[in-house]
């Protein structure tokens, strides 16, 4: 009896320790976002306060007004912040890239899984091997290529290098291997064309892995920074990540941080809210990306 009691006491203690660790870690993880939010609601006079206040004393939306409508307080001269334009650019590019990745991954994944033809395995291995190429090795040549064909500072240039995902093809091939051949054969006997089979049978069956692939592709594209940095030259072609990085001087005047934090909160909140609701898809997508 005594031993059992000690064991349950140890368990209780262990549980408490686990909870304490998890709670402290959660606070650390959430704090930067809380701090950005708090800063974004402060008037300039409070930005310099030391000790800093966690909750703004006189909360204001003036920083948000600056970002959204260009309302500057008197005495502050700054160029316009086309946050809306950057946002739309990012959404447009991420959507188009995701659309292409879903199409190419599902159709060629299906072909690699269910068709036999000469050179199939070679082609597949070749595409798979391109996953090993780090972006840094190709970026210089890609840049020169874009200069040569006159694509610098265009949407094509921002989209084209990412329209195919070797990982997506691999993932969809694995999935399509599990589709019974009978489905396909039956449709062929009925006289369906290959295109109809893909559109009416295969694509609908791929819905779930494609949703995960979409979440994954979209979030990777959303975060893309290096390539847009190289290839865009004008403010109206920038994407959000670039706008947030390049527009604001980092060692500059500190009060700019209030405006910057407002811009950041505006740009991350939609994603965070979307994530909290569509968590399942996000998390499976990331796990799937880990199960290659």
């Amino acid at each position, binding site marked *: 009896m005594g031993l059992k009691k000690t064991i349950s006491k140890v368990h209780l203690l*262990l*549980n408490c320790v*686990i909870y304490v*660790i*998890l709670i402290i*870690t959660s606070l650390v*993880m*959430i704090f*930067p*976002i809380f*701090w*950005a939010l708090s800063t974004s609601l402060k008037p300039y006079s409070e930005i310099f306060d030391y*000790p800093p206040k966690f909750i703004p004393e006189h909360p204001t939306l003036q920083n948000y007004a600056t970002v959204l409508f260009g309302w500057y307080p008197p005495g502050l001269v700054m160029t316009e912040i086309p946050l809306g334009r950057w946002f739309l650019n990012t959404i447009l590019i991420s959507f188009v890239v995701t659309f292409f990745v879903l*199409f*190419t991954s599902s*159709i060629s994944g299906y*072909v690699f899984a269910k*068709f036999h*033809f000469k050179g199939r395995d070679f*082609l597949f291995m*070749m*595409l798979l091997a*391109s996953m*090993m190429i*780090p972006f*840094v*090795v*190709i*970026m*210089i*040549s*890609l840049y*020169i290529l874009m200069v040569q064909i006159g694509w610098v500072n265009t949407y094509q240039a921002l989209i*084209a*290098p990412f*329209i*195919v995902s070797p990982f997506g*093809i691999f993932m969809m091939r694995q999935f399509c291997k599990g589709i019974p051949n009978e489905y396909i054969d039956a449709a062929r006997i009925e006289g369906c*064309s*290959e*295109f109809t089979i893909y559109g009416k049978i295969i694509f609908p069956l791929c819905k779930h892995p494609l949703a995960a692939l979409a979440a994954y592709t979209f*979030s990777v594209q*959303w*975060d893309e*920074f290096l390539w847009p*940095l190289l290839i865009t030259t004008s403010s109206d072609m920038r994407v959000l*990540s*670039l706008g*947030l*990085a390049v527009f604001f001087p*980092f060692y500059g005047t500190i009060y700019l941080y209030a405006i910057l*934090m407002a811009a*950041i909160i505006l*740009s*991350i909140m939609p994603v*965070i809210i979307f994530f*909290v609701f569509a*968590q399942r898809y996000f998390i499976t997508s*990331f796990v799937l990306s*880990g199960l290659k």
Partner: protein
Amino acid sequence: MKHTIRLSDRSRFIVTALLIPIGWFIIFRLYPLCYTLYLSFHTYYLLSGQMIFQGLLNYVSILHDTLFITSLKNTIYIVLGLSIAMWIALGLALALKNIKKAFIRNIFRTIFFIPTVVMSVAAAQIWTWMYQPSYGVINYLLSSIGFKPFLWLTSPQQVIPALIIVILWKNLGFTIILFEAGLSSIPGIFYEASEIDGATKWQQFKYITWPLLTPTLLFVFVTGFISALQTFTQPYVMTMGGPGTSSYTLVFYVYQRAFAYKDLGYASALSYIIFLIIFIASYLQLRYVKERVWA
């Protein structure tokens, strides 16, 4: 009679399916890969247009380039720092697994994962603001529990650890989720059986969890390693490689060489060396683990 080549429906489908991927592969992967190699044997400045063949000169110069050595050291530092930090993720995943109530577990998981969906640039900017030596909130918090203020991004010694913290903050949730998935794929019956045999928690960890988690661990390490070797956004946004050159990473250095100095030939050679490092390192890691685990 018309002599048109009529492809069968099947061939037409295959061609349609593979046209974009193969075209993409040739134009956007294979060609740049070869062209960068070609460039790396030349001296070529972006605006001059003159390309002079130099043989292996670029590669030889890199070996004597102190800035390359600095970038390499910094990058290795980041890679090592992040690999050590992986264990935190494993610990937290194990802790989460211990929580019986799914609802509470979900709350923690959501909070841990939120930084992962925050754009890297936004994360870098938020942390830059928090790291401010004189007004920053981190120094305030540290001083309130009795620490001296740190210089963070303005100190050559502290800048790399500061960057590691930012990257860790963003990746931790993702890594925890991967470890959790790995843990939950271990059949529960193993634990039940060992419990009947009177195994302690530690023995269960050592003989069941650890060996069966190895594939996940390997995956997390190799991918984490490859992405850490390509760290770029954080030094670019937070420090521009500074103070001085103390936060230059390999990719940042390539970027500087290619697009600030316009020295494309040299930058190409640099990028091939990075490629080589990534290739050899991931190969060695995979082999090492294969020998130790699956042999």
